């Protein structure tokens, strides 16, 4: 079976900037995939290459087996993209905008689905409002609706929750998770790492146009020496433990742990130094730790 997204040795250069550098990436159908990286890492360029907004200098990209260059009409029908910029057409109402977008994709009588999408994105009350009169958050909802209006099997969300309130975020993720559970593949870029951690099964991290990490969320979280222990002690931290010290405030010390068994070593060393543990708090690694470690080191 064809991958939902298959990127093969793709390169894209803008002047002296190598925006995407020999990227290989395969996203299977039905995945909820995260594409992460700092600003300027090449995430949006890669999405532009998938969607045909940019053309690769080298390599090939397939959407469910359709080449985005030679079979661009087929590949675009399979893809729904929420662009990062808050763009809209000021001439039309919300419903007109969605009908037009639907028509571009060959669906001229699509009001039942348009109504459903508007309902899930809480847009029903604004159906006949001109796009100019919507708040930023509402415009963002319409962008999401436009991407979903042709029920694409592959949904690309380029920072869809930037600048939107918590209520929309939760509603949007519920809807997207439902679509994902129905078999739609989701490719998400976001700077909200807690969202990516909660939603994505697999993640790729980009830096300067290259993939520097690609694995399941579980493996990535396990890969870092990212467990930490916060201790309140009866005395000074022994010198032998100082290399593990991450943070200190008064009598509270946060130490990095390479693994859970390392905690036993820390406690043994404290006992040896006759220092009592007054309080202990074990902290789990999160995606932010992974991100900082992987992207910072690469």
């Amino acid at each position: 079976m064809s991958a939902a997204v298959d990127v093969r040795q793709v390169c894209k250069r803008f002047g002296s900037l190598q925006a995407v550098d020999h990227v290989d990436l395969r996203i299977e159908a039905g995945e909820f995939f995260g594409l992460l990286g700092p600003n300027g890492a090449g995430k949006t360029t890669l999405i532009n290459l998938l969607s045909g907004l940019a053309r690769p200098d080298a390599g090939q990209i397939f959407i469910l087996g359709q080449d985005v260059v030679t079979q661009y009409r087929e590949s675009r029908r399979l893809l729904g993209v929420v662009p990062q910029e808050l763009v809209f057409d000021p001439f039309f109402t919300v419903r007109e905008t969605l009908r037009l977008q639907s028509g571009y994709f060959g669906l001229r009588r699509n009001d039942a689905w348009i109504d459903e999408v508007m309902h899930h994105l809480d847009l029903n009350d604004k159906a006949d409002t001109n796009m100019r009169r919507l708040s930023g958050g509402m415009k963002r909802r319409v962008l999401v609706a436009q991407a979903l209006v042709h029920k694409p099997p592959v949904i690309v969300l380029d920072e869809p929750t930037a600048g939107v309130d918590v209520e929309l975020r939760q509603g949007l993720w519920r809807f997207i998770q439902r679509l994902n559970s129905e078999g739609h593949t989701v490719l998400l870029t976001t700077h909200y790492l807690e969202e990516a951690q909660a939603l994505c099964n697999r993640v790729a991290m980009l830096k300067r146009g290259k993939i520097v990490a690609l694995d399941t969320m579980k493996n990535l979280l396990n890969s870092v020496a990212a467990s930490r222990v916060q201790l309140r002690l009866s005395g000074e931290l022994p010198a032998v433990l100082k290399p593990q010290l991450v943070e200190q405030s008064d009598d509270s010390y946060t130490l990095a742990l390479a693994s859970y068994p390392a905690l036993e070593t820390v406690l043994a060393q404290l006992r040896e130094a006759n220092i009592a543990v007054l309080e202990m708090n074990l902290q789990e690694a999160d995606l932010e730790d992974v991100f900082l470690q992987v992207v910072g080191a690469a």
Partner: protein
Amino acid sequence: MSSSFATLFYKEVLRVWKVAFQTLLAPILTSLLYLLIFSHVLEEHIQVYPGVRYTAFLIPGLVMMSVLQNAFANSSSSLIQSKITGNIVFVLLAPIAYGEFFAAYVLASVVRGLAVGAGVYVSALFFAVPPMLHPLWIIVFAVLGSAFLGALGVVAGIWADKFDQLAGFQNFIIMPLTFLSGVFYSIHSLPEFWQGVSRFNPFFYMIDGFRYGFFGVSDISPWFSLAVVSACFAAMAAFTLAMLRSGYKLRL
């Protein structure tokens, strides 16, 4: 006819209709002001064709000038607005072939050009009623001329990065070519040199052929004008399609 093309065409026409005051009524009023002033000043002094009042002579020229200018304005302004506001992305993300993109923008330009032209013609009938001896020629030149300008508008709208550049294109290319095309005069009234120069202006053939449809008289054979205008449109269409196919300034 594909749904993508039909929707894009409908969107472009709907856009014109939504701002009809600016896209339809304003240019009709401008043309009527030209007619009012020029016919009032020159009516008694000039007779271009025997037995034809100057005001009647002027009407087809003004109608065609409106058709051409508005056809150009339609595609060029729509595209540059979409580019600058960023909403062109909705069209670029869709499975629309470059030929459909071209046809939708050009056809919408033809519709606006013809709508403004019809408005100018009907309003001008209050001043004079020119005969309409060969309606088919009128339709052929109006459609071909507006299609040529619609395609030129696509090129200009894609090429221009700022409204300034588009205004330059309009003021330094479109306006001079339309004014120097025989809208207000017959080129036979020009000195030899300028008659020669006029023959390199494609707008001259559009207006001369269009006027032939009304009076059955023209500076040049309408068949020759038809050949020139058809060739110009074919060349412009080929150039525009090649530009769209390359993704110039639309796809990075």
